């Protein structure tokens, strides 16, 4: 009888552990939870949104996100000048918009590369369209990236050909463990051709035209 009780206890414990394994391997969470807490690709859980439109742009140093940006993926924490992308969880950082864009648009971006990306280029993708963003030097510049979107696109993605190294491995004096990619300060999207428009957000500092 005692042995039967012990065997029954073992069976009960096995069932508990089997259930735990099933729960472990099959999380039942929302895509947002998965992206932020498990995959670490979503950069902010519940950002506050401030009033802005795509033409006014998005300052990456400003707390929160503009109305037209739903969420950002693959970005590090906010700094005084803006935000680095960090390939810790994803090599393809992206910005998801609340509204889709279509037709001819111009993406203004003030950005600079991490030391490991100087001299290399990054693909910028919106919908089915893909453009190249060349990083010739380390200084941040204004880039104007034209897109002719045949369909709707609600996400701007930066596709890196390889995972950037950790700063601590690339620069021996640097104690930063992040896998820095692009330092972004400002982003705006205007309808029409890049040639038709003036500087991003009317900001006179953003006068270097790379593309």
């Amino acid at each position, binding site marked *: 009888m005692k*042995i039967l009780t*012990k*065997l029954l*206890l*073992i069976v009960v*414990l*096995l069932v*508990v*552990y089997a*259930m*735990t394994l099933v*729960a*472990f391997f099959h*999380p*039942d*969470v929302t895509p947002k*939870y998965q992206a*932020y*807490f*498990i995959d*670490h690709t979503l950069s902010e*859980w519940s950002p506050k949104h401030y009033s802005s439109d795509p033409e006014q742009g998005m300052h990456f140093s400003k707390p929160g996100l503009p109305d037209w940006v739903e969420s950002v993926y693959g970005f590090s*924490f906010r700094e005084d000048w803006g935000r680095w992308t960090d390939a*810790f969880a994803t090599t393809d950082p992206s910005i998801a918009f609340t509204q889709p864009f279509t037709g001819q648009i111009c993406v203004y971006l003030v950005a600079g590369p991490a030391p490991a990306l100087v001299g290399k280029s990054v693909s910028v993708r919106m919908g089915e369209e893909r453009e190249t963003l060349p990083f010739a030097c380390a200084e941040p510049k204004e880039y104007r990236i034209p897109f002719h979107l045949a369909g709707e696109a609600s996400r701007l993605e930066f596709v890196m050909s390889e995972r950037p190294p*950790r700063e*601590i491995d690339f620069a021996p004096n640097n*104690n930063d*463990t992040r896998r820095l990619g692009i330092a972004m300060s400002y982003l705006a999207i205007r309808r029409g051709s890049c040639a038709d428009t003036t500087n991003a957000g009317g900001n006179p500092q953003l006068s270097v035209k790379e593309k």
Partner: protein
Amino acid sequence: MSQADTHLVGFLFAIVYLGEWLRSCNWRPLFRKEDLNKLIGLMLCPLGMALYMLYLYHWTGDAFAQLHVQAAWARFVENPLLVLRVCLRGKQWLQFGALTAIGGLLASVFLLKLRKPELAVYLALSILIPLAGGISGMARYLWWQPPFLYVVYVGVRGRAAAWAIYMAFAGGFPSIMSFSWFSGHYFVI
């Protein structure tokens, strides 16, 4: 026991328990009456943690929510050796945490030398697992661990001077930590 309810201690203790059991029967468990008792004992070790994971799964859908929620404080699982490397190049308390972890790992090696492999594995994992999440609070992951206290015991046994130094340190260090806690220093968590 309360630690085993919600922490990895239960799983780690199961490793020690299994090692000790297998060694005691020359690595050939026969599953006789007494072995059945030992098997139940082994299966009870991580039970608290398993039930807690099921509880979390029930409420959040994520059995590992207690680990994943660390993302809210920007704490992610990293290579423990990388964490050590960064901290050794960091400021004083980071260096202290790194040296504490290294001291604990050396104590694990010492336990192997003492032919206590289960305790060595337990201690090493007790250090490496939290180290993967960062150096914060490393002191509390080491100083109360029974295998480490055993190493201390072996070290000071029969040496009055060493015993006195250890007692002074064991009394003084928590005092510093307590003072630091109440004065808002971040390294005490």
